[in-house]
């Protein structure tokens, strides 16, 4: 990629008008995905993302210029454009770059971008067939095999020049079953890791992915509609953690907190959640979907304790927003690609294990809902209003799990709902998702053991 000498020249150009910080983020990535419909390869997306962004700061102002021209002249033009946008001034920084090597905590054995299509197709076919074979009510199956090979370089005026190769692989299957009332119900399963093709040796059984998608679709095809109203809800482990991601996680990102646009701004040290809630954002978990060796500003990722026994301990902070807050980066700066301005985002965010048994959580509910599997959601951090969908739900009566119900979403305000988490189980599990925000779509994990929310609005009918 770009040599140390050229990086230094670019940074010199970037700070020539008085910037107090400058950074280069260059990228060359291979994005590949294969989709299968009705057991046949239906489409393939295959691309190279290539370009660079130069960012400069002066106080609380940030300027970013991007280019797809990675020649020395192209990069210098880009740096000069950023410098010019900052206004007139004199260089106040001298550039000394040292190469920095980070430990790779996400080893990859078989690089997926080098594997032939047919290997991926066979895995995908096994997964989709797993769904068809599960039950004759499965009438359609779609699947995707997706891999990304991102090569990045970051150099900044703090003197760092570092490179990383971030590889991730994922398989996703959606199964459709004919519902008993004539409609269609879907089920899905989509595991992924920061790994290569070896993902399918021990970590993920492709056929089981298809079976799980089919199982969910079949269960839901027999379900009636979820009733509407306010009730206690038990939320299962794994992707159930989307509740914390939406109801709380986004509102702890510096991108909203720094501007006072979060329900949790100014609440460090205060009790904001039920006392059984201890929550983490941990970008260091080996090979996990949301992990990184270092973030998109070159800060090593770490295990941040966000909430400890209900008390707010830290926010997720990037360098730029950290300036406004007077706080250092927590290794939380992320961007989809060089084309997006990075900001504070989540990595692997989860509620830690608590004291309760799952049986006790269900037994405590007289009349409520058990959300065994969750879909996606969204939140407005300013108001804290969030929503997320229940993918697989069951009514709970007299402490027992009863018939399945469909079509429910859960809504509320983050600050109310996390305070209402009053039971936390022991079966912590992470699950993979894509999170969208101003700096693009990035891989993140959500997670939790089973939890109970004592009261939440269930949108059924």
């Amino acid at each position: 990629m770009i040599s140390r000498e050229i990086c230094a020249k670019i940074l010199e150009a970037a700070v020539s008008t008085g910037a107090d910080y400058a950074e280069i983020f260059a990228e060359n990535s291979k994005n590949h995905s294969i989709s299968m419909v009705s057991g046949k390869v239906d489409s393939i997306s295959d691309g190279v993302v290539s370009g660079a962004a130069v960012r400069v700061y002066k106080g609380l102002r940030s300027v970013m210029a991007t280019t797809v021209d990675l020649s020395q002249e192209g990069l210098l033009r880009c740096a000069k454009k950023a410098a010019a946008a900052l206004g007139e001034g004199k260089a106040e920084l001298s550039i000394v770059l040292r190469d920095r090597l980070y430990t790779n905590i996400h080893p990859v054995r078989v690089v997926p971008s080098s594997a032939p299509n047919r290997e991926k197709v066979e895995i995908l076919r096994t997964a989709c067939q797993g769904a068809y074979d599960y039950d004759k009510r499965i009438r359609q199956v779609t699947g995707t095999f997706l891999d990304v090979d991102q090569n990045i370089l970051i150099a900044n005026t703090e003197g760092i020049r570092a490179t990383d190769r971030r590889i991730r692989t994922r398989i996703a299957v959606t199964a459709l079953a004919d519902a008993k009332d004539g409609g269609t119900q879907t089920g899905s399963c989509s595991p992924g890791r920061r790994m290569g093709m070896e993902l399918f040796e021990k970590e993920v059984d492709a056929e089981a992915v298809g079976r799980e998608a089919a199982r969910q679709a079949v269960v839901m095809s027999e379900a009636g509609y979820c009733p509407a109203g306010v009730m206690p809800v038990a939320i299962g482990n794994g992707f159930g953690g989307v509740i914390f991601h939406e109801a709380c996680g986004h509102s702890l990102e510096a991108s909203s907190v720094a501007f006072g646009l979060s329900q949790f701004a100014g609440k460090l040290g205060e009790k904001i959640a039920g006392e059984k809630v201890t929550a983490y954002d941990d970008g260091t978990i080996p090979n996990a979907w949301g992990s990184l060796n270092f973030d998109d500003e070159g800060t090593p990722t770490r295990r941040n304790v966000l909430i400890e026994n209900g008390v707010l301990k830290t926010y997720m902070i990037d360098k730029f927003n950290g300036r406004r807050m007077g706080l250092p980066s927590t290794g939380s700066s992320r961007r989809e690609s060089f084309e997006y301005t990075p900001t504070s985002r989540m990595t692997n965010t989860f509620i830690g294990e608590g004291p309760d048994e799952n049986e006790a959580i269900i037994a405590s509910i007289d009349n409520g809902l058990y959300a065994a599997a969750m879909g996606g959601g969204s939140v407005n951090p300013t108001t804290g209003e969030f929503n997320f969908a229940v993918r697989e739900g069951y009514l709970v009566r007299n402490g027992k799990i009863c018939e399945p119900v469909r079509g429910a979403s859960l809504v509320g305000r983050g600050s109310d709902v996390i305070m209402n988490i009053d039971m936390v189980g022991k079966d912590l599990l992470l699950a993979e998702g894509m999170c969208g925000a101003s700096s693009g779509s990035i891989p993140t994990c959500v997670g939790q053991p089973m939890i109970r929310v004592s009261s939440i609005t269930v949108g059924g009918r």
Partner: protein
Amino acid sequence: MEFKDFKTLVAEAAGKAGIGDYELYYASEESTEVEMFNGETTGFTASLTGGVAFRCILSGHMGSAYTQELSGEQAESLVRRAMDNALTLEKEEEAFFAEGGAAYPECERTEMPVLTPEQLTRAAFDANEALKVSHEKITDRCSTQAVTQQSKTCLVNSRGVDLSWNSSVDAVILGAVVSDGTEDNDDFEIKAGDPDSLDLKEAAKKVAARAAAKLGADVAPTGVCPVIFAPEAMYNLLLTFAAAFSAENARKGLSALQGKEGEVIASEIVTLLDDPFYPENPVKRIFDGEGSPTARKEIISGGVLNTLLYDLSTAHAAGKQTTGNASRSSYDSPVSIQPYTLVLAPGRLTEEELLAQCGSGVWIDTLGGMHAGANPISGDFSLQSSGFLVENGEKTAAVRSFTVSGNFFDMLKNITALSDKAVFPRLGLPAVASPAVLVKELTISGK
């Protein structure tokens, strides 16, 4: 490397590989954006981006690949990867390229000037000044943005298609944050056009009033009742469920409208058009992502599904003509079937008459979590909402943090009235213009 040089290299590489039938799609975009928080510049972004997609037909299948790196090595890699991908594909439908020599529609382009950083800074500043005095509940935590964006698209293929399209958009975004001391609320408004010609004061008043109206709002009561969807809510519903109009989704068994052309799918007062030239939308198209001419069409006429939306491959399989709806949002997007501006034809009632017909129910103007709470295949939805109660034919208390649940395809049949004015809430592609829509009954889940 310039596109014209890269094009020559790709042609050579294709020739060497024995590929005669191919297509190149090039898109580039230059944009500059200024962001302000409370009138102070916090961000400035100047981006120059673009890339090339190559498609070729091999063994009846359309293989493709794209790149942002325009180099000799990539020209060869692009051709090789597209060929490899074509040979991997197994779908049965035949692939086609558009033929040259077609007549393209006339369409007046919406021209907007290229703005300088100084002009953008002034526009963002003016927008913030307008917000400051917009409402008594406005806070000093408002943000504004001004953006100028110029894009160029070229599509050439070996069948004689050689097309290009330039477009430019300027926009000012006003993000209002209001507070009553105990809670905050926010909303935003996008105004497209030369900032000198925009009434930012009026836009600021509108967005601040909209945000302030929901301060202190209660949760709506749980029950089944008539619902009016305001145009802003119809924007979300129509775009989410537009996937059902795609002939490609129908082919895959992923649309509830599969095999329903010619059948009644909606109330007889429902007529839905797809308009690539909708005057209020600055983003217009005269050719689609495959190079076919675009055209206006009625998707639903008086409740009857007139046509699905087609590209070349799905049209051929159905023995029809393409409707010019092969969409490519950029070089890195696959060709997929999408509408342009969906226009729900207005009805006869004024807003007051529509409210009177509703009697008591809920007026919903904001829907959230479309990607989670709506299933475009089954049509089921359960969505986070906010709006106002309707009591005795009038909008009364603001309500929020509740859900509205139902099924989109059932709802189409239960539309009982439409207001007499179509509103265009947001520019872009795809987009929506819709009147307010009264639905007989849906379930509200709140307190």
